[in-house]
């Protein structure tokens, strides 16, 4: 290919811009169900809808090719009771105590009953679950789970789960993919959702996709923080879309720090490492978790459930913070403070069988081989427990709109999610959402309303107005400032003062965002514009998080405070936080009751203490 060579360094050659693209609608599409997001949750919903009603048209809309969705990066496994000596009520109790009693207990009951059947369905679709010698599915221990019940495919469970769902979906002609389509907004009219408006990134066209039901399955919002385990695409899109249409976001203050991210990058190192027997050491080679209510120390190579390294994530990340305060973490010249995850005693054969991806990642991104050296790790933002409020059928308050997966708050996770519950969640509730949406599609007809077209025009114009070459504010600078503000005020531990400061900073960033500079007018993969649109979503989600956190004047699960509210306060705060969007200022914060069925709030205890009956 004949390319022009060289030019001076950094000389942006060619200042001429293409004629500002006339973004007209190339097509307006009618379908039965529109699904936004094609990771595990979106695909499972699509499959359920297609199986329930093969005649339905299902638009599967994703800003990436489905296999790029962040489900792909889940490592450790998916929980579901399968062993003869395990019990559904144990999975229930582990989940509810793990969530510090903020779980919707009817939802948890529904979930644990459906879990194994969904994982079995995955097996029948071809998922390569790891096996025992006799061919039965293997399960591993996981943090906060009292029995081994985490199904896994080595340490690439999310990758295999997503691959299986994606490839199985290829069988269904009713599922039409809209890859690399970015959802700009929901179409809402007559009190119900009627479709979405999406930008085709390759063509620059804006498409009106009219649907009888819409399922949001866009994943979490980890990218509101700077240091996180999430892919770059995890920008809270669905959360912001629903929120702007006044659908409440629930429990947004609960953001999970995964205790073991690689320093520097935040790349995830699975909890499966500890499930297999890996241990955490401070700078003195001491297993510090025993100092934080997780002991007594277990012998190396004999992990015990709900003890030490198999405690829940909130507790382990908090323990890191205390070690850091005491100066007992290691100081790396580039990466800052770390502790060590030691797998050496597992031996090469077991590491290669059960944790091959961790070995690959540690070598590539930390330059250590876990067979021979401990892996440096530190907590990294990983998961948003909160999300779009839904009921047990994945339905939101807006008729026709469903939410599923990380973007949803079914109430399953409460104040702290247990590892390996979320992959199962997206299967269980993805299926429910697909079936429910199919039901609605059967009984609803599409309006031929020109009002929708006008609304879509307005949405396109609003998105388009973000292109502003004269803007004074750099989008990357705003994004970085947001990440730093969130880490400063809404980290593992929080104070009123710190959170207020973060809230003020976000308000200021939102003002500055109105003057964001977007110079590119191209219609073809305009990623500069895309980033600016995503930043708008991130800012709204971050605002919901910080105001929800300010309103929770207690400490529970992943929301822990160092000011006057250091302990759990069931009197005043055994309730969900609801954040409602307002155009002209911070969200309105309300509350909703928590459904308690069989497990009244009790003391949360792990390690030796947890063996008593107190929490059961």
């Amino acid at each position, binding site marked *: 290919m004949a390319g022009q060579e060289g030019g001076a360094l950094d000389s942006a050659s060619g200042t001429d811009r293409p004629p500002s693209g006339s973004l007209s609608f190339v097509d307006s599409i009618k379908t039965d169900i529109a699904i936004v997001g094609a990771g595990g949750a979106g695909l499972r919903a699509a499959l359920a809808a297609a199986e329930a009603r093969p005649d339905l048209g299902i638009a599967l809309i994703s800003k990436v090719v489905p296999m790029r969705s962040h489900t792909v990066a889940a490592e450790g496994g998916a929980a579901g009771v399968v062993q003869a000596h395990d019990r559904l009520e144990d999975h229930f109790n582990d989940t509810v105590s793990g969530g510090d009693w903020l779980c919707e207990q009817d939802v948890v009951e529904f979930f644990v009953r459906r879990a194994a059947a969904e994982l079995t369905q995955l097996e029948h679709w071809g998922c390569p679950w790891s096996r025992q010698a006799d061919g039965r599915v293997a399960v591993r221990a996981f943090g906060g789970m009292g029995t081994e019940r985490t199904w896994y495919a080595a340490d690439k469970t999310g990758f295999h789960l997503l691959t299986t769902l994606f490839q199985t979906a290829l069988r269904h002609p009713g599922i039409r993919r809209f890859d690399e389509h970015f959802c700009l907004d929901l179409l809402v009219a007559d009190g119900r959702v009627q479709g979405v408006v999406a930008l085709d990134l390759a063509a620059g066209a804006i498409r009106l996709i009219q649907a009888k039901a819409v399922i949001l399955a866009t994943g979490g919002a980890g990218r509101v923080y700077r240091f996180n385990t999430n892919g770059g695409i995890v920008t809270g899109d669905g959360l912001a879309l629903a929120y702007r249409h006044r659908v409440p976001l629930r429990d947004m203050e609960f953001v999970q720090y995964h205790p073991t991210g690689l320093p520097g990058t935040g790349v995830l190192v699975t909890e499966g490492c500890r499930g297999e027997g890996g241990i955490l050491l401070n700078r003195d080679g001491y297993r510090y978790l025993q100092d934080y209510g997780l002991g007594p120390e277990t012998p190396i190579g004999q992990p015990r459930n709900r003890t030490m390294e198999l405690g829940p994530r909130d507790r382990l990340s908090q323990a890191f913070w205390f070690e850091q305060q005491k100066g007992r973490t290691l100081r790396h010249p580039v990466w800052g403070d770390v502790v060590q995850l030691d797998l050496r005693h597992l031996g090469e054969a077991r590491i290669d069988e059960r944790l091959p991806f961790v070995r690959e990642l540690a070598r590539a991104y930390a330059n250590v081989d876990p067979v021979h050296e401990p892996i440096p790790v530190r907590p990294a933002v990983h998961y948003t427990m909160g999300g779009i409020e839904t009921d047990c059928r994945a339905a939101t308050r807006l008729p026709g709109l469903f939410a599923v997966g990380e973007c949803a708050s079914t109430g399953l996770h409460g104040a702290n999610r247990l590892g390996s519950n979320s992959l199962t969640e997206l299967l269980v509730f993805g299926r429910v959402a697909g079936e429910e949406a199919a039901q609605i599609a059967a009984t609803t007809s599409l309006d031929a309303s020109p009002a929708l077209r006008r609304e879509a025009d307005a949405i396109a114009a609003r998105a388009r107005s973000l292109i502003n070459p004269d803007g004074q504010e750099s989008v990357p600078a705003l994004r970085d400032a947001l990440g730093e503000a969130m880490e400063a005020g809404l980290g593992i531990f929080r104070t009123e003062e710190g959170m207020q400061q973060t809230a003020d900073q976000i308000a200021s960033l939102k003002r500055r965002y109105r003057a964001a500079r977007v110079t590119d007018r191209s219609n073809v993969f305009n*990623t500069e514009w895309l980033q600016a649109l995503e930043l708008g979503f991130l800012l709204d989600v971050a605002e919901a998080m910080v105001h929800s956190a300010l309103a929770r004047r207690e400490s529970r699960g992943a929301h822990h405070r160092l000011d006057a509210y250091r302990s759990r306060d069931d009197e005043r705060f055994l309730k969900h936080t609801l954040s409602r969007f307002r155009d002209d200022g911070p969200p309105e914060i309300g509350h909703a009751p928590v459904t308690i069925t069989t497990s009244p709030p009790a003391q949360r205890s792990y390690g030796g203490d947890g063996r008593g009956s107190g929490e059961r």
Partner: protein
Amino acid sequence: MNGTIVIEVQRYRPEQDPHPWWQAFELDYRPEMSVLDALHQIRDRHDSGLAYRWSCRMAICGSCGLMVDGVPRLGCKTFLRDYYPDRIRLGPLAHFPIERDLIVDLRDFLDKLAAVKPYLIRAAQDERPSEPRRQTPAQLARFLPFAQCISCGLCYAACPEYGLNNRFFGPAALALLHRYNRDSRDQGRAERLPTMNAEDGVWGCTFVGYCSQVCPKGVDPAAAINQGKIVSVIDYVRHLVGLSPATLGQDATQEGER
């Protein structure tokens, strides 16, 4: 040892550039930086219009394939320290149409992956399954290496046959076909045979083996394709002696292993 490094990036903006061209950027260098980090630095500090795909930055989502000094690689798993202090040239994946800058059109590749029937095919459809089927670790190991593909497209950029004739199914798709054929739970081999036996199936491969060299996940499509050739030959012989391919059982590929 922090200095600067020069990265040359191939640019192509279809609405204004008649041809692709090269642009050089001088970046702050840190030894832990990946090629993807370098692209972020260019976009954030030098040219906000630079277009490239990325997401997981941990070598599992398959988004960030590109040519690094002419070699297909994942940007997130290629480190500047392995090139420093030399300059590095970054181009879009070879053999695919360029959409813009480092973004190529992968639709043909993705369509081929979908065309090999990459799902379990059963003689009789199972009802709602009540329990998992059994599969021993040995049965799992027969196909697991071929189930690691992240659809990044590097092997197509490496494949000289695909570069000459993009009707060739290519490495990843044929490896995927092989993955399902080797799964003890699958009964769809006969349905996949026509694809495999076709001129543009396994016989299109001239066994250069570069696909396996560049695969970031160790899939070894070249081995898959050549095991596929053996299956294809056995099928041909059986056809000559009057056996239908549908009778081709598990045994056929067992012979083709190793």
